[in-house]
């Protein structure tokens, strides 16, 4: 197969994500595998599709429900390609994510988790209502470079400073990102977090900035 044919099928896969068209994506992946396109390139096409959708979310050309469907399509694609196994082999950045104890809201966390996953992080999603102890033990076990904490209600958000303090005691180099409706930048800083993302739209840039600050020991 020539490059043009490969590019055509990758384009098909890429467009299937923002078009939330799982059939098109499945056909595209099967075709791509038959043409011998490396799995990494297919994943890249899927991710580019999500990026397109994420950017359209920013410009309001895509509403949240359609973005959620795009993520579902991407998830299906990654499952087909056994993404997790490959990413673990490839040495992606290990990241632990979860909603703090007592909080059942998972919409925001799920979006963030999937964006991280699609962006090449090795995501360990602990779900909702996660006790502090579980965050700490998982960060240690997975040697997480990033811990992402979410809370949608102020009654549960107040656990964040203690979790961050305890994580920093055992894993001082782990970068802690926080997010959720009751938070803002000032609150995130006062909790001792290393980064804050107001929404999924700025998530990757904010995380990269926090990692960059940590690498040069720059104070936030």
């Amino acid at each position: 197969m020539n490059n043009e044919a490969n590019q055509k099928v990758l384009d098909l896969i890429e467009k299937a994500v923002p078009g939330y068209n799982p059939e098109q994506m499945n056909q595209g992946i099967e075709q791509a595998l038959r043409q011998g396109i490396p799995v990494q390139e297919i994943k890249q096409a899927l991710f580019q599709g999500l990026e397109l959708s994420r950017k359209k979310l920013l410009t309001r050309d895509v509403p949240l429900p359609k973005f959620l469907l795009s993520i579902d399509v991407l998830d299906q694609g990654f499952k087909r390609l056994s993404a997790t196994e490959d990413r673990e082999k490839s040495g992606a950045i290990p990241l632990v994510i979860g909603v703090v104890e007592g909080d059942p809201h998972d919409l925001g966390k799920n979006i963030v988790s999937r964006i991280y996953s699609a962006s090449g992080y090795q995501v360990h999603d602990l779900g909702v209502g996660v006790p502090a102890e579980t965050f700490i033990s998982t960060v240690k076990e997975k040697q997480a470079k990033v811990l992402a904490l979410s809370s949608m209600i102020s009654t549960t958000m107040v656990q964040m400073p203690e979790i961050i303090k305890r994580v920093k005691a055992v894993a001082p180099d782990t970068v802690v990102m926080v997010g959720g409706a009751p938070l803002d930048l000032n609150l995130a800083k006062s909790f001792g977090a290393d980064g804050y993302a107001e929404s999924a739209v700025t998530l990757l840039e904010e995380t990269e900035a926090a990692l960059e600050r940590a690498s040069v020991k720059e104070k936030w």
Partner: protein
Amino acid sequence: MAVMEIVSSLRKKQIPPLGLIPDRVLDFLASLTSWRGKHSELTTIERLLATFRHKEPDHVPCAPLVGGAYRQLTGASFREFSLDAEKAIEAGLLGSEVIGGDVLLLGLDLTVEASDFGQATIYPENSTAHPDYSQPLIKDHTDYRKLKRIELKDAPRMQKVIAMSRRALKEKGLSAVFVPVISSPLSVLAMMRGAAQVFKDCILYPDDVMAAAETVTAVLIDYINALCDTGLIIAAPDMLFASESGLGKELWEKMEGPLGRQIAEVLHRRNCLIAIHNCGDKPYFDSMIRFMEPEAISFACLADGCKDRKEMKKRYGDQTAFIGDVETPLLFHGSPRQVMEECRKVIEDYAEGGGFILAPGCEYPPNHNLLNAIILVQAARIYG
């Protein structure tokens, strides 16, 4: 007929429904009140009358949006506040004295309607009630059509809120306005299915979602009518999904807009003012106004399409009153001085020409001490 109803309310020392009074009379009264407000302190009802008719009162009214945080005044736990209406209203009435404010929240928590439909609900001691998402009432899209209409007599939690409204009106009469928050049809479904799933179902299975949403709307209308029977003068439908945090504008107008219109028509027919609450990102003011004609909108973020507060006031300030938009996180981490300063700025941006009520963008943090709620009320007096 209207005159008799007005007289009857006043005899009971209750605020008469403003919707009963012809617009021209209201405008005349509001102008008179506004003039009087330049020389002396107004009562809550006078202040609100001027505000809702877009005249400047003595100072801007305040809606501190304290809900669950009231329980701190009586020592009730979150669980007790949600399940024991007597304890909840005791705390609210005490809050109206201790903290003050002109427009006060009335209710238990956001799960009231969904739990009456049968959604399993968790009531933690130290946090707000929430659905048990491990047991969603609507497990897949085929369950939407199985949702059955419930009778209000079989809805114990809504009955509790109705009883609270009756008691609040009896005890506070003309001195404060308690306002119940009523979940929108899709918000109720989100409690039974999860918001993300409802959003996706609106695209994939819109007819199924609509069938359930119509069932919910019918029950909400019964609930609203029963609340209006208590003498309610303002209700706050929560229309969060009419924002970028919810559905896209087109989808909201297709799915929930018409149901919002039904709800609004009932409220207006019952002479009840509508103060929509929408704490989402970029709320669709134009759509909400078009479908529901609210007298006020409570918001946390700039309206869709507006780049700053000035533009928002210019575009919508003569169409609806504004309730907002002190940042809720600031109430949590800000010092009283910072909160005062923020209130001053918000008042400066919105209050000119009337039609503005100072409030947080969303419910006052329910576990945080009440000092900054008192600051909000004081800031309205000082800077408003």
